[in-house]
């Protein structure tokens, strides 16, 4: 594969060096540029939405207030990631929409959850449920559009509960497209039962250093795995640095395992070739503990 890649790259370079843009095309571009007004009209394109929903500030403030009141009730000031919460919110993912559609060439199967919760977690659970439903339907619409002119393929959307500990509840949604152009896409939604809040990775930390600490640990694990097993491969230390894994995203998928350790998750092709599938790394607490917010230490 590497030789294949290098050969294509070399041929592309040579052909590009010989490339000629016809004079009439060049002239047409110049005419277009000359016709532009001195100042462009201002029309702001809509910015892409953030992938994970976050609580509105007012609701977040309410949860924060609730959390700050807890110490006065005699509860422990801070819970470790794995400790039992004093006031727990119950979350439960149940199937809300399930259907299958088949044509001669395509096969779509969708199982969408609704995350149910009691009073404290209801706002977050409802918003996440709505987001999952919208994203699933968008994935189905895109799949149908991509296959409007034919072509074999299937789309399988399902969910499971990745973690259900005393403190954390994580729903995992998987969108698996078997058509050649798609990849397995996985989203993790993690709720903190003590607050009823949806938590993204960056919410756990007060210091940005967690990104470097966790990323370095992941790279060490990648190198160790590759050294131990020739069949293991990651995008790391390659001759294409732009394509190598550099660092985790503040919004990186994760969940908290039963033993309280952080598990960082990557989609298929995100940090490794397709043969590796989706990959995850269990990060020892010693790596990031000092970066955590006090309530999570």
């Amino acid at each position, binding site marked *: 594969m590497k030789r294949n890649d290098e*050969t294509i790259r070399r041929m592309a370079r040579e052909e590009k060096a010989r490339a000629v843009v016809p004079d009439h095309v060049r002239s047409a571009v110049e005419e277009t540029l000359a016709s532009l007004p001195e100042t462009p009209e201002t029309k702001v394109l809509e910015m892409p939405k953030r992938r994970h929903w976050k609580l509105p500030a007012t609701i977040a403030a309410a949860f924060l207030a609730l959390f700050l009141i807890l110490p006065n009730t005699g509860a422990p000031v801070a819970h470790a990631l794995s400790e039992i919460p004093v006031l727990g919110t119950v979350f439960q993912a149940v199937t809300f929409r399930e259907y299958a559609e088949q044509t001669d060439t395509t096969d779509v199967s969708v199982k969408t959850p609704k995350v149910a919760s009691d009073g404290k977690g209801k706002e977050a659970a409802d918003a996440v449920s709505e987001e999952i439903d919208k994203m699933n339907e968008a994935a189905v619409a895109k799949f149908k559009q991509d296959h409007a002119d034919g072509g074999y393929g299937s789309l399988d959307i399902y969910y499971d509960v990745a973690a259900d500990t005393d403190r954390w509840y994580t729903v995992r949604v998987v969108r698996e497209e078997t058509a050649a152009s798609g990849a397995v896409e996985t989203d993790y939604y993690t709720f903190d039962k003590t607050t009823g809040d949806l938590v993204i990775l960056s919410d756990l930390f007060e210091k940005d250093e967690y990104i470097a600490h966790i990323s370095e640990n992941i790279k060490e694990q990648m190198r160790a795995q590759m050294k131990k097993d020739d069949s293991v491969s990651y995008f790391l230390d390659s001759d294409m640095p*732009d394509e190598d894994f550099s660092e985790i995203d503040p919004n990186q998928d994760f969940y908290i395992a039963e033993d309280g350790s952080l598990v960082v998750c990557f989609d298929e092709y995100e940090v490794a070739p*397709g043969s590796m599938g989706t990959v995850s790394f269990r990060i020892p607490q010693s790596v990031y503990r000092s970066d955590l917010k006090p309530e999570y230490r």
Partner: protein
Amino acid sequence: MQMDKTWFSEQVREREAAMYALAMSYMKQEDDALDCMQQSILKAYEHLDSLRDPEKFRSWLYGILINCCKDELRRKKRAATPEEHTEEQPAPEAPVSHETKEVLWNAVNRLPEPYRTVLILFYYEDLPTADIAAATDTRPATVRKQLERARDLLKAELEKEGFDETE
């Protein structure tokens, strides 16, 4: 850095060869490719203030061009009579050069979408997969999968031509 008309024009001139190649790979006919290039230049300038990072101009411009080409192809398809409805046509000529038979380019142009676009942007334009994802409105992981499949398809195409250097 001031993103004014002068700056914009310089950026476009630097990328006109790539724009031409990309537009030809979609439209096949030079007149149509040129229309899409001009439309995308006008559209890009109109929305220039939405470009947050000047370093991303290249992938941003290619994304606009790709969308213009796709829109135009859809419009043509709707306007075509049933007799005119045909499968995607191979490129009538190698758009990077009118004189030289370009083995790789012609093979790339025989591939279907999305493989053609990711190969052009990755190998001819040296765009990282993150930027290709931005240009094609998809995710870097998806682009990597498309590239993996595209390389296999390309290898098969080149072997058909008796070209086995990639083995």
